């Protein structure tokens, strides 16, 4: 008795949120060589920004002036969340944008103290930044301090059937995941992506080729942190709640394991890593169902295996399951090689687009150019 739809609905959002995080980390560590051990900080910023924005807008739209973390606000939100579909959707989109901007800005600012130091210091600094943020958020009253927020309006709260509501959310996360993936692929397979890889290989040599290394690093932290912020916002809309204690460093390490296992410097690999980990997580839970009273909790064994796998992968297959590929730009065409894997897909989309356009023009009675 395995209900595939309900499994998809419950598994996919969390998977795709982690996949987005893994993609961000992959851009940072896989392409640029920046050891971001504080990923969770930007994830948290996105989450809080989304929670704060959506609650505030909703309550003020309906003319309530409760503090957004109060019990009244939570109960009110339960009543008003499903009333105005357009507001839900627009607040959702606005929150995603704001989450991107604020988290990105935080990433950009954090890059400053770390521009001159190596990966070890960068790692510790951002790791500390994450912890600092968590302690700070516990005191930050506007987002409820240690209470956190509850009752954040689901973008599809107006759909009465929970299954459809969640399916819609799955579609939204899928679309965002695909968009993020395409954006990062475009970025990676461009002269910019080449510059990123040169920084990873040898910062100094890259600098000597005129690449503004610190600026590129800061830019990349902006983009990757911003996208992690989007992941945080999605997480908040999925859970409907946010609290500072959700964003512990363990989350960062989990995402790291995904990227290492899947393949550094390969966006498909990052997604594959997220896939493996999220499925493994569910699979170990099932072990508990089969063997009811184990001497050692399967979770411990799963983590021990994860630890060993990381080491084995680094030793025998340092590039991960899916190895890194060359930067596919048009330059390869000059040497008679196909430049992009997904060129064919783009071509197909273009053809389809052309036909659709033609059909549309035919329908509305206009001449196609």
């Amino acid at each position, binding site marked *: 008795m395995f209900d595939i739809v309900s499994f998809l609905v419950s598994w996919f959002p969390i998977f795709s949120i982690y996949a987005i995080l893994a993609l961000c980390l992959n851009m940072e*560590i896989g392409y640029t*060589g920046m*050891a971001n051990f504080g990923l969770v900080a930007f994830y948290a910023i996105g989450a809080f920004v989304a929670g704060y924005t959506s609650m505030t807008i909703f309550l003020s739209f309906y003319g309530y002036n409760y503090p957004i973390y109060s019990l009244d606000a939570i109960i009110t939100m339960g009543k008003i969340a499903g009333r105005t579909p357009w507001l839900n959707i627009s607040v959702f989109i606005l929150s995603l944008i704001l989450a991107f901007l604020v988290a990105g800005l935080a990433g950009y600012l954090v890059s*400053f*103290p*770390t*521009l*001159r*130091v*190596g*990966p*070890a*210091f*960068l*790692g*510790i*600094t951002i*790791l*500390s*930044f994450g*912890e*600092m943020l968590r*302690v*700070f958020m*516990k*005191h930050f009253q506007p987002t409820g301090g240690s209470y956190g927020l509850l009752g954040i309006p689901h973008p599809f709260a107006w759909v009465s059937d929970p299954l459809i509501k969640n399916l819609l959310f799955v579609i939204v996360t899928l679309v965002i995941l695909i968009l993020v993936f395409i954006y990062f692929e475009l970025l990676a397979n461009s002269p910019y992506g080449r510059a990123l890889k040169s920084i990873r290989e040898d*910062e*100094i040599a890259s*600098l000597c080729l005129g690449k*503004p*290394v*610190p*600026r590129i690093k800061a830019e990349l932290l902006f983009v990757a942190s911003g996208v992690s912020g989007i992941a945080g916002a999605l997480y908040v809309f999925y859970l409907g709640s946010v609290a500072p204690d959700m964003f512990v460093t363990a989350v960062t*390490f989990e995402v*790291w*394991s995904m990227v*290492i296992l899947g393949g550094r410097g390969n966006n498909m690999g990052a997604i594959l890593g997220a896939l493996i980990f999220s499925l493994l997580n569910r699979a170990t839970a099932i072990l508990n169902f089969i063997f009811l009273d184990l*001497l*050692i*909790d399967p*979770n*411990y*064994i799963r*983590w*021990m295996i*994860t*630890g*060993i*796998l*990381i*080491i084995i992968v*680094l*030793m025998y297959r*340092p590039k991960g399951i899916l190895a890194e590929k060359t930067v596919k730009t048009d330059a390869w065409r000059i040497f008679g090689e196909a430049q992009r894997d997904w060129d064919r897909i783009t071509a197909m989309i273009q053809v389809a687009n052309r036909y659709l356009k033609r059909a549309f023009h035919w329908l509305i009675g206009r001449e196609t150019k």
Partner: protein
Amino acid sequence: MEVPRELINTTWYTCLYSLMAVPLTLSYRTSKVLNFAHGIYITIGAYIPVFISRGLGISVSPIIAILSSFTAGAILAMVSHLAVFSPLIKRKATPVTLMIASMGLWIFIKYALYAALSILQRSWMTQLTYTNPNIDIPSSISFMGIEINARLLLTILLVIVVFTLLTLFLMKTKTGMAIRAIADNPELAQLTGISREKTLLIAWAISGGIAAIGGFAWSIFAYVSPETGDNLILQVFACSVIGGLVSLSITFIGAIIISSAENLLIILLNRYFGVELSFRPFLSFLILLLTILIRPPAGAGGGLPYRYKITGYISRLLRRREENV
């Protein structure tokens, strides 16, 4: 006369942090591995006396506890070097790769410890998380009419003895000098005929062992849980970063700074600025961030080994705007 508790705590924390952070700096300096598994050496060091005293049902003499902690930490560190870091270094792994490997090692040992604890708890019928080892120390000793906390005294003695021995070892013995040589210039050291592998192994053993002694010191100070090392590791990193991950003596000063910030500065901030007590962990991270901002350890950890004007970009933007006007 009564000594204020803040000062006692500061002293105690200085001892603990220095015992934990100095070996971290040492291992980073020699092997260029930023070791996330360092926290687990501390935890293991704290658990060894617990295992002995609970397993045998006796109270352990401090000397035996210290030695066994040291041995366990040293063995663990040597095994992690031999099994993980050394093969990776041979494969020309980058510092980031080594850091990730240490993360994997940390995850593995931590959950292996959890698994071991869950078995031991069942077979010994006692709770082993959040516990204290049974160590044979009087609670206080009277010295010339002054009551002194024997555990604090032992910790201070431990710090003095450990660091004296460490200094002597690094300065006077051949192996110690080899360790320093490898830390300062690996290529040159190898040319002079120092066996890199052997020296690194000894350096690892020492750093793991001292970290485990730090764990022991923790176990007589507070309670022990499988998360002990992890919960302390960021503060320990902060101490090491103040030392630039290079200097052992500045790392010690870093331990003093962090412990004073956590025990004294927070009190001042509370009294004069009304900063809540729960901001305590915030302070140590803030200090770490400020250290990196104000005195960036250029070149350390594989960064750019030269000045780079951060303001370059902004000032260029401004200049461009002026030109446009």
